[in-house]
């Protein structure tokens, strides 16, 4: 009896907290799919804390740390003092590309990003970014989860937990081509949040997205009706098992995962199929065999298709911007891979009227130093003290550069935005109060921004 009591209280608590409970987990209540669908899924859409400026989120992850002074933050003083010695055996290294003001806004974009230059008026460039650590793995974890010391839920999981997702046939949070290293699955994991909120990865950094076969999507033996019958049996077993410890959300996660998997069997091939896209769309994204922009272009187009189908959050991931040496060649290669797809995504979202309610975030886990230890001045090291990211779309100012690093680019000095502040701002734009989006675990209310975070009002439209 006692036990019964605390179970009920938890379930009602969860329900009133607005995150409904495993709809199939009510033992014996849901014998059929029809009954199940009436109950509330923990992934069902939930109202935001306040009207959202953006309903969907795309993160273009420039893994490894792109250089600000090669992309969005011109440093004439740095160019002028090129070769000057800094600390130890290090020398100031000039920007490697020509700079122009672009569009009506006159936003600075270097010649490295000629495609993004064309959509400059859509961008809100944050040049005062800073974060806490300058090693890839911890920095990447902090970028994705807010913490590098502890396993914490990822941004996407928090968003999914806060807002649910609009398409119950597709995952609510998809990570395209994530690396298996640098924190791996923790970067899209749910940590102590219920497992249903974790991201689904498609392909990985070593597998081009076009080779991503979603395996096991078809059953060779049972037709769909028969398989549904089988699944009802499995779910009944799972519900019975869930009774052993109703607090264990992992079992709810299993139940949810089967339902989603069953529906994904028909929905996923459709959303992943680019064959119906017109040649001009594919060209716009730079998609084509042998083109350096193929892989990231496909990711961007898939992100658009998924967002359009109601997926809440998609992350696209590029290979390594980590050019300690041979920066010019390295950044050139990376730009050839991402620039066109990135610009196409912005333009495409705009054309389809989706940009106003989609937030696009671009950037890496940190930036790069203005100086180098390479005598040929062709390299830059990690810089967590000042770097650039950009936002575009739902609720942010257009054609704005907010913040700056010092005249050389060592540290963010104006309009400083800590990673925690960026997280707070992203949540704010999604209609979530970063102070209010909490989850009680081990006796404490956790949030994405921990005890930090400030919404960067200056960039809100």
């Amino acid at each position, binding site marked *: 009896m006692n036990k019964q009591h605390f179970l009920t209280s938890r379930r009602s608590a969860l329900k009133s907290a607005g995150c409904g409970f495993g709809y199939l987990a009510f033992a014996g209540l849901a014998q059929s799919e029809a009954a199940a669908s009436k109950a509330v899924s923990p992934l069902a859409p939930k109202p935001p804390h306040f009207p959202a400026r953006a309903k969907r989120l795309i993160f273009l992850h420039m893994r490894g740390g792109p250089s600000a002074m090669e992309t969005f933050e011109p440093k004439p003083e740095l160019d002028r003092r090129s070769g000057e010695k800094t600390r130890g055996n290090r020398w100031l290294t000039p920007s490697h590309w020509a700079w122009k003001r672009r569009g009506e806004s006159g936003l600075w974009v270097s010649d490295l990003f000629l495609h993004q230059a064309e959509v400059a008026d859509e961008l809100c460039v944050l040049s005062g970014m800073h974060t806490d650590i300058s090693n890839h793995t911890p920095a990447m974890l902090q970028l994705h989860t807010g913490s590098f010391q502890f396993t914490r839920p990822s941004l996407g999981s928090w968003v999914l937990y806060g807002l649910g997702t609009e398409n119950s046939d597709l995952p609510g949070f998809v990570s395209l081509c994530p690396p298996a290293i640098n924190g791996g699955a923790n970067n899209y994991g749910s940590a102590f949040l219920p497992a249903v909120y974790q991201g689904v990865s498609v392909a990985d950094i070593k597998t081009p997205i076009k080779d991503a076969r*979603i395996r*096991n999507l078809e059953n060779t033996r049972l037709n769909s009706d028969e398989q549904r019958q*089988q699944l009802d*049996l499995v779910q009944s077993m*799972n519900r019975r098992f869930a009774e052993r410890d109703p607090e264990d959300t992992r079992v709810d996660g299993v139940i949810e995962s089967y339902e989603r998997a*069953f529906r994904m069997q028909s929905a996923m091939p459709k959303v992943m199929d680019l064959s119906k896209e017109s040649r001009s769309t594919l060209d716009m994204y730079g998609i084509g065999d042998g083109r350096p922009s193929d892989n990231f272009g496909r990711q961007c187009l898939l992100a658009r298709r998924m967002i359009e189908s109601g997926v809440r959050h998609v992350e696209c991931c590029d290979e390594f911007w980590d050019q300690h040496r041979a920066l010019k060649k390295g950044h050139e290669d990376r730009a050839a891979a991402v620039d066109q797809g990135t610009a196409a995504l912005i333009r495409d979202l705009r054309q389809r009227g989706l940009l106003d309610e989609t937030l696009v975030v671009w950037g890496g886990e940190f930036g790069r130093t203005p100086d180098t230890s390479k005598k040929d001045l062709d390299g830059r090291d990690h810089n*967590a003290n000042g770097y650039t990211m950009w936002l575009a779309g739902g609720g942010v100012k257009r054609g704005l550069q907010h913040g700056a690093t010092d005249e050389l680019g060592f540290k963010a000095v104006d309009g400083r935005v800590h990673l925690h502040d960026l997280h707070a701002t992203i949540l704010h734009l999604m209609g979530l109060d970063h102070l209010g989006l909490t989850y009680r675990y081990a006796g404490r209310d956790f949030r994405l921004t921990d005890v930090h975070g400030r919404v960067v009002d200056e960039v809100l439209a």
Partner: protein
Amino acid sequence: MLNLQKHLRTLSFAIAVAGLTLVNADDDVEFFENNIRPVLVDYCYKCHSSDSDEPAGGLQLDTKIGIRTGGETGPAVVPMDLQESLLLSAIEYRDLEMPPDEKLDDEIIADFRQWIKKGASDPRDDDMPHDTESDPVAAPPLWSVQPVQNPQVPVVENHSWPVSGLDQFILARLESSGLTPAVPATKEILLRRLSFDLIGLPPSVDEFQSFTSSADDTYPAQVERLLDSPQFGERWGRHWLDVVRYGESTGSSRDVLMLYSWRYRDYVIDAYNSDMPYDQFVQQQIAGDLLSSADDESRRRNLIATGLLAIGSKSLNGGNLELDIVDDQVDVISKAFMGFTVACARCHDHKFDPIPTADYYAMAGIFRNVDTFYGGSTRRPTTLKDQLKVYLPLTEDVTELTSQVDQLNKQSAAIQKKITPLDKRSKSLKKQLPDNWKPLLASIDTDEGAKSNVEAVETLSAKAQKALRQYGDVQKQLSVLKKELSVVQAQQADVPRPEFAFAVQDRKKSQDWPIQVRGEKGKNGDTPPRGFLSCVELSDEFPIPVEQSGRMQLAQWMTHPNHPLTSRVVVNRVWQHLFGRGLVESVNNFGRSGSAPTHPLLLDWMAHRFVHQHKWSVKSLIREIVLSRTYQMSSANNEEGWGQDPSNQLLWRANRRRLEAEALRDAMLAASGQLKSERPAGSLVQQVGEGEVGRNIDAQPLGQPFPHRSVYLPIIRGMLPEMLKIFDFPEPSNPSGQRTVTNVPTQSLFLMNSEFVQQQAGAIAARVMESSSDNGDRIRFAWLMCLGREPASGEIEETTQFLDRLSISISDDSTRNVQVWQTVCQSLLASAEFRFID
């Protein structure tokens, strides 16, 4: 005693530090965050922060300590003292005028007054240090490098519960928190838990029945049975292979197969099975080749053990391969044995832990004097001579083999030398032959040709006749020589290749290695003498003779009974595998950025016993743990425990755990009766042969059915077996102590649709149908095989109904029965219960 107190202080500090982030953000903090910090950031930090090169007036306002201690003129903020707080007088433009550009709004200044008046709450100690050099002097001592204590077993109120000291430690903490330990697990749950934990397989139906039906307590006997099983090493060896980033290809950008890693794999499994004392296990892996060995078998084993240092992932595509290999070796040694991330210190002093760069180069210097045999560049050699440059032969003496090969090489070269000019001559003669020379050739020197041919020859010119004759001679000689050559080539192919291994050898000369400034090759700093971690203090010293690499001394240092890390780290790993979480949760990180131990005294008590009582015997350690009441608790939830300690830090119940990929796969094979328990010879990568993933390998052999235990699946870094990958196999290029557990639709799809699961379900169905003709008995049998328990009556009823219902929809009479039973059995494999152990 004094020492112990100091130790306790350290530990409680560590716990306090770890607990800091658990403090609830209260109103004052909220006020600071909303009203104070943004102002400081916007108006003050530019000149007054640790990020400023020279904070103006020596004042740093971006840390709590900075704002409280102040700058040259005194403290900027004194809590609750508006007069003494210089910051306030400055922003009120009373003496100093700050910020200099423009006075702040009155509202803001009022906020500051209120904030200081209320105590100037400042949460910024929580802030992680920014990217500046850490100050090791100011940092408190790190708990994990303090000596291991042998604490008193605590007194408990409930005397009847504990059966061992371990239980008393656990119970004492529960009692002091007002919690009670869970009831014992049921026999069926306990046996399933124990069996998976010890051998990674479910109990068989017979084992289950004999255990649950026996009136006596046969649990200790079950423990012994499982510890003695050869499958024990396959389970625990795989745990270790995670830690040492085991792989059978170079990973990285060029994924070249590594054909001999499996010898190290088998070595690890054998070591666990023979209960090799852990100190020996460590020594062999660091310096096995330098240890004396009683016989050839132990010599080979010791050499293979050093495979640890060779099997890491390799970047064969340029870069500083040599330095990277050293880095990988330092990384795996320090993480696996000490739970330390020493490799961070390659470029700078460790940001959190007491590991200066000099320590890194002292340790790395040891491995700089080592040749690592891992197979060489992307083009793997084919000749014995070249192979011997990149692989280590296990055969002690290869001189006979090499001389045999040399001999044959000489012979074949000599023959080839004769062939080459003859070939040339044959070609030039051929040009002088008449058009229809073929039939004429036979008659010219045998006289056996057709008469017409003989006549035809005679009609030829003398020159043509001569050419024809000479050509015939040359052809004859060539055919003899080519026959000889093929004989020699056959002999060459028959020369037995020595058995190769990946392993290491010391170089002839040894030297120290200068610090590479910022980790870059060739930028030399000071040269620290080779050595170990300076933060670990032992009662003995292990000086490294100039002419030696120092691996031997490293091995001795690492396994010194007083080494504070080695025993704690391994005990903690074992604990994790039996309870689902280590006493130190971050099993590979015993540094400051890792987690503090939940039960520091218990950890020390166990570590001390492991060395001094169990004499480094891992099986004894496991035995002690699984015989405890703590291990045998039920995982059932209760309100009291859940309310107070939902994450079960204090162990008031057993943790439910999800099976790892390997156990999941093996359990399916066991249930289907397909599992081959014997060890396969070598690895499938040998059947594939030398080559590189995605370029030139025939992956066919990898696709064949492989009914062996999963630990023997080929771990090609860029091409992991599907099921392992889907169920969270760790990245095999990095040492990994903990597996993540995800729950994603790709797993569900695998269980619903994959060929593997369907095949296993089919085989289980066949067994089930054979077991009885009665549906109830069949269901019972299926439940026992797959879930290790009897089905409840409701389950039998539900399943019977399901069988009837599905039968109607399947139209094919001949397979209907098999189809429905296969569907039921697959449902069991797919169920949540199958993959969790309670």
